[in-house]
């Protein structure tokens, strides 16, 4: 089996293994082993990628193509470039961290880990797919376990949130479906065969009229997953009700599918349609950036704060993607990676705080730095990364985005960029507000004085995420090179 198909095969095998387990202890060990193997494979893939890239300059590496449904010319076509490799690595890290954070799932542990792994299978498959059909299949496989994960193991109005999330994302996939079919039936514009293969379609010039019709459908279909304003409403509710590990995967990985899909499908295959529509979606995404930031400012529930902050940060990704500029695109991918790690870290920490204090309301918390110093310090670090302090991943990403965006000389782009940049200030305000209220000051509630210490599995999960956040900030070049190489090939 080739190096990429393993990314689908190993989680499937882990799921099969999980079916045989009994009880929490066995289930978590099996999923941990499976996830560690995945992480190892991803690291191996990074090295393999660099070796292969040195000798091979085709857009996609490690490609493989098997016919699936002949009549529709549907193939199981896979391949990766630097961007997908980076995102695969991100996914493996977040999944492993998620397994550690869910070490103590009491209720139906086996089912929990199976759903988690089904979700990750979908995500892996999505990132390696080069065939629109396969990609669509994996997209839906990634979304549907969220319903059970939030519904069964969630808290608060979980039934409502789970249903809202699933229906909005599946509704988006209905829109996407029409876009995908539109691309498919225009893929013979130069007289060739109808195909779902992304690389094949990229060679064809789809008629401008068709692009104008199907670009917005494809874009919106993916962008709902990337929390595009005003279709972001599923995300805060979903986060708030989801259990910790699910929030992590959801914000850290699942929402990245949106940006990646837009980049790989909408922009790549229909560039002229994208140019034509970009003004409209730039307005929406810039609104999302500002709206998310101000939304976070008003919330008092920790999860809502981070959910709105995600809307803001992912708005930047969409914003940067629409700039048609190498630097901005590089920034968009880096922002995806950075946000994935950082938000997963945030949600892990919030889960730990909630698990100890049983509240997520920052007005009821106070002085946590004194009682749970480990968690609190990491929270401050994550906050600094979130507001884009140099030395952390967020800085590199946002720098690239705004430098790239400002290179567009038209007044409209300039204004949009300036408006979006201002969100960084608001980000600083809401991050520091949380730090100030929740961590500093006196301990407001005497019960908090003897909160339990962090355990080894919590620490492992946290460190897994923290190290790359700092690593990307201190040594961003290797990953940025990997992404940049791919973008250059992509633009040709």
């Amino acid at each position, binding site marked *: 089996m080739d190096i990429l198909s393993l990314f689908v095969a190993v989680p499937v095998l882990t799921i099969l293994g999980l079916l045989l387990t009994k009880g929490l202890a066995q289930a978590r060990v099996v999923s941990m082993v499976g996830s560690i193997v995945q992480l190892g494979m991803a690291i191996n893939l990074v090295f393999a990628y660099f070796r292969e890239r040195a000798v091979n300059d085709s857009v996609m590496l490690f490609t493989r193509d098997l016919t699936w449904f002949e009549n529709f010319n549907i193939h199981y076509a896979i391949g990766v470039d630097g961007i997908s490799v980076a995102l695969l690595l991100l996914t493996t890290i977040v999944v492993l961290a998620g397994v550690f954070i869910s070490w103590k799932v009491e209720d139906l542990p086996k089912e929990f880990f199976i759903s988690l792994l089904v979700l990750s299978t979908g995500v892996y498959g999505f990132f390696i797919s080069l065939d629109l059909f396969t990609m669509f299949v994996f997209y*839906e*496989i990634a979304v549907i376990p969220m319903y059970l994960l939030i*519904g069964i193991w969630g808290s608060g109005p979980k*039934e409502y949130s789970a*249903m809202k999330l*699933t229906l909005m994302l*599946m509704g988006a996939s*209905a829109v996407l479906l029409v876009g995908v*079919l539109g691309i*498919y039936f225009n893929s013979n514009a130069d007289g060739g065969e109808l195909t779902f293969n992304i690389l094949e379609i990229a060679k064809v010039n789809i008629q401008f009229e068709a692009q104008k019709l199907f670009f917005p459908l494809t874009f919106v279909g993916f962008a709902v997953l990337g929390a595009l304003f005003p279709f972001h409403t599923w995300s805060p509710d979903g986060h708030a009700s989801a259990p910790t590990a699910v929030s992590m995967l959801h914000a850290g990985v699942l929402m990245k599918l949106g940006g990646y899909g837009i980049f790989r499908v909408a922009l790549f295959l229909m560039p002229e349609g994208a140019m034509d529509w970009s003004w409209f979606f730039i307005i929406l995404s810039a609104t999302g950036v500002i709206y998310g930031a101000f939304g976070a400012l008003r919330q008092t529930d920790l999860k809502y704060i981070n959910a709105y902050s995600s809307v803001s940060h992912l708005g930047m990704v969409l914003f940067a993607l629409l700039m048609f500029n190498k630097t901005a695109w590089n920034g968009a991918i880096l922002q995806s990676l950075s946000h994935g790690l950082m938000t997963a870290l945030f949600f892990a920490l919030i889960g730990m705080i909630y698990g100890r204090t049983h509240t997520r309301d920052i007005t009821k918390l106070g002085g946590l730095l004194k009682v749970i110093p480990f968690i609190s310090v990491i929270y401050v670090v994550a906050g600094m990364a979130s507001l884009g302090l140099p030395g952390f991943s967020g800085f590199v990403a946002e720098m690239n985005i705004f430098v790239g965006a400002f290179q567009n000389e038209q007044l409209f782009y300039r204004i949009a960029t300036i408006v979006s940049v201002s969100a960084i200030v608001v980000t600083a305000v809401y991050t520091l507000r949380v730090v100030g209220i929740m961590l500093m000051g006196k301990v407001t509630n005497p019960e908090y004085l003897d909160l339990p210490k962090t355990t080894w599995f919590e620490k492992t999960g946290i460190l897994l995420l923290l190290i790359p956040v700092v690593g990307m900030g201190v040594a961003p070049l290797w990953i940025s090179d990997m992404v940049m190489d791919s973008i250059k090939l992509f633009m040709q």
Partner: protein
Amino acid sequence: MDISNFLLMRQEIMLLSIVLLLIIAEIFIPNDKKSSIVHFAIFLFGIHTILGFVGLSEGSLFGGSFQTTKLVYFFKNVLNVGVLIVLLQSADWIQEKVVKENKGSEFFILLFSSLLGMYFMISAGDFLMFYIGLELGTLPVAALAAYETSKRISSESGIKFILSAALASGAALFGVSLLYATSGSIFFADIIPTITASNLTILGFVLFFSGLAFKISIVPFHFWTADVYEGAPISVSSYLSVISKGAAVFILMILLFTVLKPLMYIWENMIYGLTIATMLIGNLFALRQQNMKRFLAFSSIAQAGFILLGIISGTQLGATTAIYFVLVYIFSNLAAFGVVQAISLKTGKENMDDYNGLYRTNPKLSLVMMLALFSLAGIPPVAGFFGKFFLFTSAASEGYYLLVFIAAANATVSLYYYLLVVRAMFIRKNEHPIPFFNSKIYMRLGLIVSVIGILVLGLYSPLYDYIFELNGFLNQ
């Protein structure tokens, strides 16, 4: 006529012999051993199903009124497999309830007679054979729907079915007579060259179409569906929802794609409207249903709307997909009905609220139900997703993007109510959940076969290619 010509009818002859054997068995088996007739019937039908796959020869009989092709064999085999699953799932119910009232063998006799009617309907080469098949396929079902004579609701459903069915087949017959009036023949082959879009022909076609639309429960011919499904025994409901509907779809497709092809510019507009109405009405009514049988009834109406998406394109691709989707739908719907049947048999509970917390007590049944519902909703990687995706693709291939969009939006709506059942089983808690129980071997087998179908049909692509080759003749 050479005796070997009758081999073309061997599936009909075999089924008829099974019916006769069952009548003989009914006479000779003593009353206290009547439950063995269930094994006997299932065994015979199993052999019949297996034999259906071998030795396919094409040809026509009786001057062309009976014809058979590889595609027709395939249709019959699909129906056979469906009926076999229905039998497996209803075996326990027959043994526990029906045999005691001493009418076990009649159940099989009626069911097989109805299936025989479907055979003739699919194999028809003229409208006479078609009509005989239609009637033979319908009348025994009315008796079956009223089978639980102790329940008023069952008799009510039988009456409702026979009245509406009589009206529908009356309309169909009137339509056929008008078509005969305009073309001068009842043979399909003779009608094809002479058919023109005169007003009388169109009127005949519309009447004829409504007769079949009744069987498929296309809106606005769907009013009987929910009431009959709710009142009839579950086995009969599931038979109605997949076998009778599937057979009607098959013959409708054959007729639309061959005999009525010259009228395509008329029927495609008609079907466009009916597709939207059927999906929409089915979905909207399904949203609020509490009774699982009614719920599945409205869901099956919505599914009929999706099937029409394949027919509307009028291409070989569309026909293939519609057949494929019917096959997938048979397995998915039977799995869902099977679970409802198993639970209803053990506990008598049929409401969605009763399913709360089912996963905690009966995880396997809940998983089967979830797979079936996901397949109906079109969630990968189960077969329903592929069926729906291909339906959308075939409709889009003729440029019906708006229709595809409406259908996809409807699929999302349908996901809502399918998830309601998943929510009940997996998320909701219940103080008095349905206790754990083990189903008997037949029921298990029935569920296992349907689940295998749901899982394999989608991922295993050669089957689709096989169907595609089979209906090459539709691509004229």
